[in-house]
Every structure is written in C-alpha cells, then in structure tokens.
C-alpha cells in the first residue's frame, strides 16, 4: 500500500501549485472576481497551454487518461488559490457528461474544445425545488418534429453566465422525481427562449439561473439515450464530488495555515494567543478534521473513475459528508480563533472560510449525503 503520488503525479501537482502561486495572489483574485467574466481568462489560457484542462481526457485529446488522482492533484491546488475558473463545471462535469453519454460525432464536435479550454461548458442539474435530489426534475422535454421543446428552470448554474455550451437535464417521461425519463441536452446558451439571470456568488464566483421558455433543440442536441440520463448524471456528479472534495482539502489547508500563523503572531495578555490551551486544542481539532477530510478526498479520488457500484456510491456519499462537516467546522472554528479580524474582507482568510461553507452547498450537503449513505446501508444490510 502506498499513499504517495508517483513522480508524474507529483510533477503535475507542483506545476499547478507554481502556476497558482505566481498568478493567483489574493489581490489578483479580488480583481478577477469583480470582472464580468468573474475569473481570469489569462489564467484559463495558461491552464490550457500546460495541458491541465486536458488532464482527465484520453491521450489523443492531449490528456493524461482520466485518473481521479491526477484530477485530485489539480483541484487541491486550485482550491489552495481559491481559483475561480470553471474547471469543475467545464472540464470535469461537462467533459465527463459528453464523454460518457455523447455519440461519436458529439464527442468529436465538443471534446477537443473542452480539453483545450476553448469551449467552456456549464451544467444545469439543480432546480428551484430539487434540494440536491437531481432526479427531482420538472423541466420538460417535449418531442416536437424531429427535435424537442424544452421548458423549465435550472437553478444556480455555476459558470453558466459565460459558457459556450450548456448541458441541462430535462424530463421526457415519468413523474417529477422518477429516476427514469431524464435526458440530457447540450444547447447553445444564445438559443431563442433562453433567459439567464446572472449573479455573483457569495464566495466570489459567478453563476446564473437558466429559464428555458419553449427552447427548440434538434434531436442531435440530446446526449445519450432518451430517458436514460439518470445513471450518467449520478456517475458524473460522483466524479465531480471527488474533485470538489480535493478542492476542499486545498482550501482547508490554506485556511488552517493562515490561522496557525495568526495564533503564533497575534499577542494578547503579553503572549502569542497560540499559548492559550483553549486555542491550542481547537487548532488540534481543526487539524484532525483536516486529516479526516484528506483521507476521504484520497478515497474518493481512488474510486471516482471505477465502474459504478454500491461501494463507489457509498464511498462518494461518505466523502462528501465528511468534507461538508469538516469544512464547516474548520471555517467556523478558524473564524472564532481569529476574532474580528477573521471576518474582514481585506484579509484573504475570510474568503477561504466562505468557500468552505459554500462547498457544502454544491452537489449535496452533509445531510443529503448522510441520507444517501443510510439508504444504501438499509437497502443492502
């Protein structure tokens, strides 16, 4: 058994770390966040030039061949820099859905662009009523002519404001929470009938709600078999969960590093506050949570690209549950350890604290994944 990265994986992680350190100072991040794009086009370009946007794709697309461990290395470093680029949405989730469900011509049409970073994909799976249950889809896809008409609303599509291609789930059959009857559609964000309500997110990124009002798409916009998208969505959001866990570990490591540094330098009552036992033990608890989170991020990465199984589903639900709880614990305890200064906009730490809470609102919170895990346990005992 060996938990170390191999030489290539270590080089990959070092490359991303160097790039993030060089290009993603806290001040620059605030500037990127305030632009209309909401991230750095230049940094995205650099990720592309170094082949990093191609990491999960096969070699013929310039990639490394799709292992969860490489993705983990990239995501942890992007997390450490609080990077705003749509890597998770476009490369992992968008690229993953096209790779798994797309036919040969769709793959040929879109994957080279996704892998090179030229084509940014955003994915709309949540809906206003869905509360993390991605089978809870009321967006309708009605057959019309040789294509479909889409009606409905997709909630909080991160990166949707600037995407070149949107992938949305819609229902062509079944009741509103039926796992069967879902289909995926790849659509032009500028198609007639699409309204985007764009906003910044509280953790500095951008997204939008997408309202589909009689949007006409042709049959070749459908990704995969009609009505059979449920499994694809579950599998690919599982890969995205593993990637998000890896990002969270990078965010936690930096949040803890900053907090520890503060405890060593901030003096009250004539001593560094890190000399107070109550803060020491709190720091130990935060570090233990980080260890738990690291372990689960590693485990999640190791199963992310396995064939679907109960064990894979259990593992990913468990990982997201641990990451969600650890993230909230570290965020809250680190703010408290800082005192008021930990709540100020001008200090990078506060933005790490916000990102950790918001990671728990993406792809299901700790409660949601505890329920998923429980249901699998009850179905198999």
């Amino acid at each position, binding site marked *: 058994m060996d938990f170390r990265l191999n030489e290539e994986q270590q080089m990959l992680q070092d490359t991303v770390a160097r790039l993030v350190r060089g290009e993603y100072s806290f001040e620059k991040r605030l500037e990127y966040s305030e632009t209309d794009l909401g991230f750095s086009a230049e940094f995205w370009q650099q990720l592309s030039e170094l082949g990093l946007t191609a990491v999960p794709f096969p070699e013929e697309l310039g990639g490394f061949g799709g292992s969860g461990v490489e993705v983990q290395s990239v995501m942890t470093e992007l997390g450490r820099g609080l990077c705003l680029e749509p890597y998770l949405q476009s490369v992992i989730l968008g690229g993953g859905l096209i790779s798994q469900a797309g036919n040969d011509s769709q793959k040929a049409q879109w994957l080279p662009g996704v892998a090179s970073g030229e084509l940014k994909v955003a994915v709309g799976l949540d809906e206003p009523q869905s509360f993390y249950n991605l089978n809870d889809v009321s967006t309708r896809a009605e057959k019309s002519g040789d294509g479909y008409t889409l009606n409905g609303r997709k909630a*909080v599509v991160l990166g949707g404001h600037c995407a070149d291609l949107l992938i949305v789930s819609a229902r062509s059959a079944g009741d509103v929470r039926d796992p069967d009857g879902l289909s995926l559609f790849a659509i032009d964000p500028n198609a007639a009938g699409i309204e985007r309500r764009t906003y910044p997110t509280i953790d500095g990124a951008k997204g939008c*709600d997408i309202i589909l009002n009689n949007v006409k798409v042709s049959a070749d916009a459908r990704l995969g078999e009609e009505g059979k998208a449920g499994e694809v969505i579950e599998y690919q959001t599982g890969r995205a969960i593993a990637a998000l866990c890896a990002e969270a570990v990078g965010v936690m490591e930096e949040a803890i590093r900053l907090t520890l540094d503060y405890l060593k330098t901030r003096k009250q009552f004539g001593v560094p506050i890190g000399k107070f036992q109550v803060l020491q033990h709190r720091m130990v608890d935060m570090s233990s949570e980080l260890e738990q989170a690291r372990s689960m991020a590693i485990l999640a990465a190791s199963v992310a690209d396995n064939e679907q199984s109960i064990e894979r589903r259990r593992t990913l639900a468990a990982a997201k549950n641990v990451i969600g709880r650890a993230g909230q614990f570290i965020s809250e305890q680190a703010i408290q350890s800082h*005192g008021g200064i930990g709540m100020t*906009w001008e200090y990078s730490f506060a933005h790490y604290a916000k990102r950790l809470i918001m990671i728990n609102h*993406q792809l299901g919170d700790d409660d949601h994944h505890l329920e998923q895990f429980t249901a699998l346990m009850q179905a198999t005992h």
Partner: protein
Amino acid sequence: MNLNYTAEELAFRDEVRAFLDDQLPADIAAKVKGFKHLSKDDHQRWQRILSKQGWYATHWPTEYGGVEWSPVQKHIWDEESCHYGVPRSIPFGVNMVAPVIIRFGNEAQKQQYLPRILSGEDWWCQGYSEPGAGSDLASLKTRAVRDGDHYIVSGQKTWTTLGQHANMIFCLVRTNTEVKAQEGISFLLIDMDTPGITVRPIITLDGEHEVNEVFFEDVKVPVENLVGEENKGWTYAKYLLTYERTGLAGIGLSKAGLEHLKALATRRLKNGRPLIEDTTFGQRIAQIEIDLMAASISNLRIVAAVEGGGMPGAESSMLKVRGTEIRQSINDLARRAIGVYALPFVEEEMSLDYDGEPLSDENAAPLAAQYFNNRKLSIFGGSNEIQKNIVTKMILEL
C-alpha cells in the same frame, strides 16, 4: 414556585402589544423581519416614536426621563419587540454611555448629554477595542495627554459599530503609563467633528459596512469631557460592560429567528414535501427549539433573581455563550434550508426598495450573508472564550 406572570405583568404585556400594534410602522417591521438593511432614518423614526411613548430609556431612572421597568417588564418588552419586528436598539447612547453618565458623570454632563440621547440628537458610538487590544482590552494604547484645559488624544480605535453615523464617541484612553494597565485608563466623551478624527470603513466578509476604524491625530478634547475621575475609567468601563452583557444572549431574537426559520422550512420543498416535514431537517429545527426552551428558562431565572434584588453575575456569561450558539445555529439552518440558493449573492434583493421578482424564496437573499455576519455573535461583547474565563474564575473558582 410559580412560573407564570402576575396579573400586573400580563396587563403590562397587553399594553406593550397594544402599543406595538398601533405604533410600530409596518414598513420598518417588514424590513426587520425580512433581514433588510435599516437606514439611519428608520432607526431615528422609530426612536422618536419610542421617546414620545416614554419607553426609549428602559435602563434610566425616571428623573432623567427613563422608564424604570422591572427586570420582568424589560424581559416582556424584549420578547414582544423581537416578535413584532422592532428594530434592534442602537445601544451605545441609551444603554451604554448614559448609565455611566448617570452613575459617574457630573451634573453638567447629565444636563448636556442625556436630553440629547433621549431626543435622538446625538448618535453615540463606542471607542473601546484597538488593533492591539481586543480580548486584552486593558492593554489599550490610545493616549490622552493633559495640556491646559484640554486633553490631546492620539491613537486608534477599531470595530466601531455604526461609527459612520455617529457624532459622538465615548473612549477609553490611557492617561497614565507608569502604573498597572487597568489603573491608567480614563473615560472620555469626544465630539466626532473635532479636527484630527478620521473614520475608515471596515468591510466584513459578507460585504457589509457595519464596523469602522477611528483614528485620532492630536485631537483636542476639553477636560470637562472627562467622566468621573482621571485614571478611574476601567471601573466605569466594567460597569458599562455589565449593561452590554445583558441582552447579548438574544433569547427574544432567537425566538423570532426560529419562527422565521419554521416559516421558511414550510415554504421550501424537499422531495415535493415541505422541508419542515423532512425527518432530518425537522429534527434539526426541533433540537434548536428544545435548546432554546431551556435557555429561555435560564434567562428567566436570571431575570427573577435580579427582580429579587440580586446582581446578574457570571450566569449571564454562560447564557451569552449558549444564547449566541443558539442564534448561530438558527442562521446555519436558515442557510441550509435554501440549498443551492445559498450561493447567489443578489445584493439588490437585500436592499430596502427591491420590488423585482425574487430569485428564489422571498427571504432567501440575505440568509447566507447573515449566517456569515452573525459569526460575530460569539466574538463581540466579550468573546465566548472570555465569557468562559469569567465563569471559570467567578463560579468554579478554578
């Protein structure tokens, strides 16, 4: 033992309710209940209504225009006003500096400042914390050097809540550096318009401007603005802190927050059913309600002890810790209840006059920001760690 209100207390509660039904402006209550931002004008409008009723200065003796409510009456007012959506009172003038002036100030200071606090002419802020003096408040460094009829004040205060609206600030300043830290502190009243004072905003992680830094550069303050005796300021500061600590537990606010949370969880859906009916989420709410029930009785026990002539002691420190934890868990659940909609930061929806279609739930927009903002509850007013130190010393004698 009798846990019920007396007939007189019930009559008082009816009077409070009748007043609020009749006098609380609906627009202000709606903003409070929807967590919208209140303007300076909103605060002042409500203050004038309270003053007219004679209910503004609940901590003052009647001779200065106060109400002299009993602890139970104050408690009833707190519960009812939170329930109705009364704006949080800005405590720095009426509940903080005024009791100090009444107790330790001279006649001229009482004549000058108390009527202006009652009428709302003066907006006070607090100059206690400094960049180097937070939990260790006594280590403060802002200097006041006597020069004829004036003190010359130099230094910096921080975390000054709503200092951007204030025209007066009460400050702890160092007037003697030769003695033990606590023995060289004085209590000064300073006009914010005096040359040499600069207020700089501190933006918090939720994008809000609520606190400030205040810089003093050779600021001339007349000696008559000294409260009590020179170098006795620490005693006055501690006296003031006992006033600050009462109410920090926010039991009334938690009760109002819980009602709001239940309404939200009734509107939000999970698997097609109201979220409040979901076992996991329902139990999370129930657990908070149970803890709040206990804290509420703990609070009443303190109220009753004070009513019987006792002093609120270290028990109020325990209640501050518990009470702020409960408020924070209510904010946590409200943020959780909106799922992915915790992410969007739609600032215009949080403003007073937004009349567009809400992105999701009508009350969703400020919930994540409010969760982050209220991390301050366990930090300010003596951090929860400091409160625990007080309990350690005063009750456990460890």
